[in-house]
């Protein structure tokens, strides 16, 4: 009997079954608190760490010499400084873009092919683990993107203009949903991204494990689905607009603590 009771309690904790709410906001907060422990993102972190150290690809090499901006192989603290300028590619790059560079140069993969691969397939699955682990290595650290290089500053300006760019059949821009405080779509709170929305919010909360779909989403995937719901055409993986938006949001988030990889509904 005791076992049965314990099992039911555990089942209730693991199932996505909401308790009877005092208010719907309370119920959702309760549900999220229940989920906070045991973030399945940890499973992806473990995979990512392994992938970083494993010899793979046509060149049979690991990613341990990859320079994420703080020197070859330096992972701690790298996430909260991205996107940034890289001299070797003469580009401003975010984490996913930089991983493509390293996977190509160090391991011999075809970056363009990986960029064309749909989310959740092929090497894109490995990128889920890698971005989860690399972001985890900066957990709790504060965002401090550089604006020292002219290209970094240019990306901020372009990212800002992209943020306010209205288009598509709904005339939506990022700003349609993310330029005011305390707004929500249905019951989903919306971070205000034109300024620092606070620790662990917005830019500081991705990559994240999405319980609703059981998927690990990187920032590239989050932006992709944003554009889908804005009724825009399809943004290329690691395309210039995605990098520019990352710079705009990341610079705005200066000083905010990263909680990535986080847990989302």
């Amino acid at each position: 009997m005791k076992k049965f009771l314990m099992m039911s309690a555990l089942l209730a904790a693991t199932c996505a079954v909401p308790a009877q709410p005092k208010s719907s906001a309370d119920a959702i907060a309760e549900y999220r608190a229940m989920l906070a422990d045991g973030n399945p993102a940890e499973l992806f972190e473990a995979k990512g760490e392994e992938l970083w150290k494993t010899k793979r690809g046509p060149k049979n090499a690991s990613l341990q010499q990859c320079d994420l901006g703080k020197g070859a192989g330096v992972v701690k603290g790298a996430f909260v400084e991205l996107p940034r300028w890289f001299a070797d590619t003469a580009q401003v790059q975010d984490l996913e873009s930089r991983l493509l560079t390293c996977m190509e140069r160090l391991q011999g993969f075809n970056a363009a092919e990986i960029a064309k691969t749909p989310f959740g397939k092929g090497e894109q699955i490995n990128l889920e683990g890698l971005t989860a682990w690399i972001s985890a290595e900066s957990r709790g650290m504060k965002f401090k993107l550089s604006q020292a290089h002219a290209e970094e500053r240019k990306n901020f300006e372009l990212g800002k203009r992209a943020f306010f760019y209205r288009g598509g059949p709904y005339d939506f821009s990022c700003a349609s949903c993310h330029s005011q405080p305390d707004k929500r779509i249905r019951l989903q709170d919306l971070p205000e991204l034109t300024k620092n929305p606070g620790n662990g919010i917005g830019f500081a909360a991705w990559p994240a494990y999405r319980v609703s779909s059981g998927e690990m989403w990187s920032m590239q995937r989050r932006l992709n689905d944003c554009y889908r719901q804005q009724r825009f055409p399809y943004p290329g993986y690691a395309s210039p607009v995605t990098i520019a938006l990352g710079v705009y949001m990341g610079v705005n988030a200066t000083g905010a603590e990263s909680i990535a990889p986080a847990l989302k509904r």
Partner: protein
Amino acid sequence: MNKKRISLAAAVLLVAACAAVPPAPDYDALTAQMMSGSFRDEGIAKVDRLQQDAANQACSKAQMANLPDVLAASIQQQALSTVRMPADGVFIGDWREGEKLAQNGRGMTWTDKSAATSANGGNCYNCHQISKAEVSFGTIGPSLYNYGKMRGISDPASAAARPIVEYTWTKLWNAKAYNACSGMPRFGHAGLLDETQLKHLMALILDPKSPVNQ
């Protein structure tokens, strides 16, 4: 005498320094380039969706600040001129169908199979409170609860109700008619919903029998 020489030299240096500073990049042009180069077609979502009409161009540039009055007025007037009132003069449909449409957030994304109005929902609850019973509502737009009741609409077909009825229809058809940079999609003008669907939404918020007006 020396002071004059020094200040002259300083002035020359200043001018030389200013002349050497490159002009700020044309960020607007670079943005246009970036947008057109970063997207591709997918399903029903084609890259021509990036094209902006005058309203979207102006509102994008304003970055959520108010437009100058003259510009706003001209955009609003142009939007007003696009509005088509219902051909049969009937504005009110079935509020039950309206509620279904308001709940439906589908349509026009690249995962939607068709761009036909029959495939589209109104997406209304995403941004608005509407009926009291639905607690899962957004707050991007104002609450529409008791919309008709608050405006004293007892008979939407009456002459007294006409101004509000036409205002509401216009708002649904092309919200920019009253607010140049409105955040609301232009459901009629952009071909998102057809006349019949819009009439159902009209009923949802104007029909005195609708739960919205209880």
